[in-house]
Structures are given as C-alpha cells and as structure tokens.
C-alpha cells in the first residue's frame, strides 16, 4: 500500500529525480491531442527528451498512454509507486520499450526499467514540445 493519494503527489519527487539526471527543462500537463502529458523534460546536454506518465494504480492505462507518447519524446517512462511495480508490470513495459520509475514512500525514485529510444518519434511533435519546455523553463 503506497502513501501516495493522488497522482499529482508523484510529480515533485519524479520531477526532481529527472532534473538530477540532466532533464532541467521541464513542463507539466502538456496537451498531446486528447492526452495530457504529466511531465515532459529536455536535456540540453544530451539533446534528448522524455515524457512521463504518473499513475498510482492503473498501470495498463499508463502503458497505453506512454506507447502514444513514443511519438513525441525520445524516451518514455511511467512513474508508479514502488509498491505497484512487480514482474508482470515490468515485463509489459519492457515489451514496448517504455521505462519505469518506481517512487518510494519517502519520495526516493529508482529507475526500475531502462527505456528503449523510441523509433517512432516524430520530429515535428518532438520539436514542438522541446520548444514549449524550453520556453517554460
């Protein structure tokens, strides 16, 4: 049982975690058609982008969404409370190249699964989001 009550509670620790990994340019709740990307980040050093979906329980929904986000970010993650990450979840995400971040009760984040770089990324979407986060940053 996790101590997080709302998905938004995961935002601060996850945002801080990916910031430490170099993704200093960030914005939240970005509209991508009918979806809203919880966190989009860009690393100027690596010139790489990432999109993260925060979810407390419904990991299947997170998987569906992150598969779509592979169109607009180089790396895509779902961030779940650590207690929600098990072998079934890991293998489902691994199959589609989506990374997993486990968020511990103390807010400590851990990369449980390394994502594959998306072969489906569309430069026009990526460019749009990178410019948005750089403006916001």
């Amino acid at each position, binding site marked *: 049982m996790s101590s997080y009550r709302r998905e938004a509670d995961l935002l601060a620790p996850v945002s801080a975690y990916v910031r430490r990994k170099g993704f200093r340019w960030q914005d939240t709740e970005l509209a991508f*058609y009918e979806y809203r990307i919880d966190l989009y980040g860009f690393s100027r050093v690596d010139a790489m982008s990432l999109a993260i979906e925060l979810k407390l329980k419904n990991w299947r929904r997170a998987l569906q969404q992150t*598969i779509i986000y592979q*169109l607009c970010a180089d790396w895509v993650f779902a961030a779940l409370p650590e207690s929600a990450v098990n072998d079934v979840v890991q293998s489902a995400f691994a199959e589609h190249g989506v990374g997993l971040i486990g968020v511990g009760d103390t807010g400590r984040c851990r990369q449980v699964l390394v994502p594959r770089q998306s072969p489906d990324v*569309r430069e026009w979407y990526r460019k749009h989001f990178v410019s948005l986060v750089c403006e916001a940053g």
Partner: protein
Amino acid sequence: MTQVDPKLIIRLGSHAEKDYLEKTARLIDGVIVAANLVEATPGATASLLNKYGGKKYGTVYYIDPMTYGYAQDLDLLKSERKVKKKPVFDFKRSYRGLSEQFGGMLAQVVKKDKRLTRRDLTTDSAVETLCESVANYQMNRIGGEFAKDPEYASFAASISRPAAILTPYFYAGGRNAMRWLELVPRLARATAALDLEIPVHAVVFADEQLLYDDEAMELLKTDLPGTGVEGVWLWFSSLNEHVAEVEQLVALRDLASDLANTMQVNTMHGGYYSLALSRIGLSGLSHGIGYGEQKDVAPVQGQSTPTVRYYLPNVKKRLGVPQIERTFRNIGVTNVAEFHKQICDCVVCKGVVRSSLREFSAFGDLHYSSPSSQRKSQTPAAAKRCRFHFMLNRIRERDKVRQQSIEDIVAELEEAARKWCRQPSIANDADHLHRWREALED
C-alpha cells in the same frame, strides 16, 4: 437467410450539419429528423426535408416522433431560460410545440407537467387516439408548414410525405420493462389499422439488457408480425456495437433475422455491425454524421463539444490521431502512397495527406476555442474533415457490404483483427472485430 441491400439513413442532429447532407445527399438513401427539431425550426426543416426527401436526390425522409420523452423524467425536456430577466426552468419550446401539435394526452403531459404512464394507455381507445395523432403529425406537418405560407400554399399538396410513419414509442426499461414492451405490438396494430396509404413502422426502444432476456425477444418475434406494420426500427438504449458482448450481438442478429421474414428491420442508432446484419435480413440503419451509432435514453446534457475522432476504416471505429499514427512504422506506412493504400484513400484523405504523413495530424488539430478556454479542443476544420471522411467511408462500406456474403464479411473482420489487434496503441480498441466475427458466424 434473406440478403438485403442495406439503406443508409442519416439522422440530422441540427441544421449546422446541413452542409454534410448537401454534399452526400446523392449517395445516401434517406434522412431522419427528430420531431423536436422540426418544431424548433419548422420552416427550415420543412424546406430541407422537401429538398432531400424528394425525387431530385432519390432519397426519402422519416420523422422520429420522439414520444418517449413524454413518459420519462420531464425535466429532461426542460431548460432554463430567462423570462423578464428571471431564470425559469420550463419545457423547451420545441417539446412544448410538439406536444401541442400532437394534442390529446401528450398535450396534457406538458400542460399538467405530469408524465405519461402506462395506465394512460390502458384502453384501446386511448392507444388509438395517440396513434392517430402521432401518425397525422408525421403525415401532414411538413406539407402544413408550406400551406401556411401564401407564397407556397399551392405546392403544399405536392410536398413529399415520409417514407414510413413511425408508431409512437416509449422506453421499455427498469422494473416495468416487459409491460412497456407489451405496448409495442398494440401501438403497431393500432397505427397500422389507420390505413394510412404510407407504410407503418413500429419502433422498439428498450434497455440493452433486454437483449439477454429470452422472454422479451420472444415477445417481439411472436407479437410484432401480424400487427400489419411493414417495418420496425430497433433501438436498444446505450447498446454500443463496439463493446457489446457476443451474446447481445447474437440476440440482436437473431431478432433482426427473425423479424426480417415478415417486415423491414432497421436499427435506429447502428454502426458497421448493423450494416453486416443486412446479410441476414436487416434493411437499414440510421446514425448521425460522425456520431450517434449508439444512443442512451437519457440525453447528454451540459457536456462540451466532443472530439470527432478519425474513423479507421479497417477497424470500423473512430480512434485518436496519435493512436493510428503510432501504428505506421509497424505496418509499413512510411509514405503517402502507403497511407492511402493501408489507411484510407477517400477524397478527403487524399486531399489532406498529400505530400507528407505529417499532414495526417490535420484530422486532430487543436486550438483554444475562446480566450478564456483552459483546454485546447478540436478545431472546427478538423472536426469537419473527420466527419466527411467518416461519411464517405460509411457510404463505401454500405456499397461494399451489398456485394458481400456473410462469409466475406467474417473473413474481412478476421483479417483486420489479425493486423490491428497486434498494434499496441490500438489493440484495446479493436476487440470488437473478434466479437463481431464470432456473432456473425455463430
């Protein structure tokens, strides 16, 4: 097994949709309008039905009498408006006007603000009076609108009439579902007995759960034939062909196939599955322009304009642009020609996706619809593209189905399932392909 050339009847939801009708009228088989729309805009609707229900386009029209509204929560027929600067929650002008046009017990519903109950329809004379007023309305309302205008009065007699008169109908759901359902053959018999010179069609409007009810299905199969009606329209509230279980789909198939031995069978809010049922006797289906392939008894209220999604012809379902775009690499859509080959080559798609796959995003363009909007919504131009693309594909599907056997359709669904159910962004939205196949070949 009777094979029928299915008719595509488009339900006009508002006059804002006229443009779609204008451009596709020669390709569809008919138009159906709700009687409350007729009463909201009598002149415009009469002129539209005269145009599209005449010989020029070779189409027919129907008026949906919408009588069920008067037997449900009457607040659903009301809206808030200002009278002398004070807010008043009262019957919408269209439903008040319609009740006055019907007269009798339906006029009393509005006058007394008391909904119609089954007890109001206990006697044969009450049923006959209701049927007569509802039939007269459909027979004469459009011509009557022309007769009112001195300039057009002389044409009134030559104004075309509906292709069929729909009986009054009420929702069969909840605890008394069977009692309401028993009314259907009575209303059918009473309307047919009016000897109208125009075919009479019964309307079955019931809770989708009744598709699981053998007794309900048996009642319709046994009691509707012999009432004298030439057709029936089936509307199972909130039945969504895309999520319906095989058992429900089979029940609908069996009901349609059984009734088709004695009458024309149509679905009031159907989609591709209904089209496929034409191979076992279903005569036609109606739906809105880019929506309305399912409808619930309770109207949608206070919701923002829904996004019109892109209809993926192979999957027979509307999906989000990125869901489809995400499949491109996997299925080998790497250029425009391949898009037209594998996704769609209708004139809309050929016009939009011309030089780059990037142009596909035009079907999902978003904007802030007003300076105060918090969220982006689909642009009117994107919605229009999706609607026209859908209409052209539905017409194409109807034409194709006319040439197919049930086995051809089953094989096509199987092939589509093999291809699309493997796509991770679509798999969850393509399950119906399996269920439809199973229900059709059962």
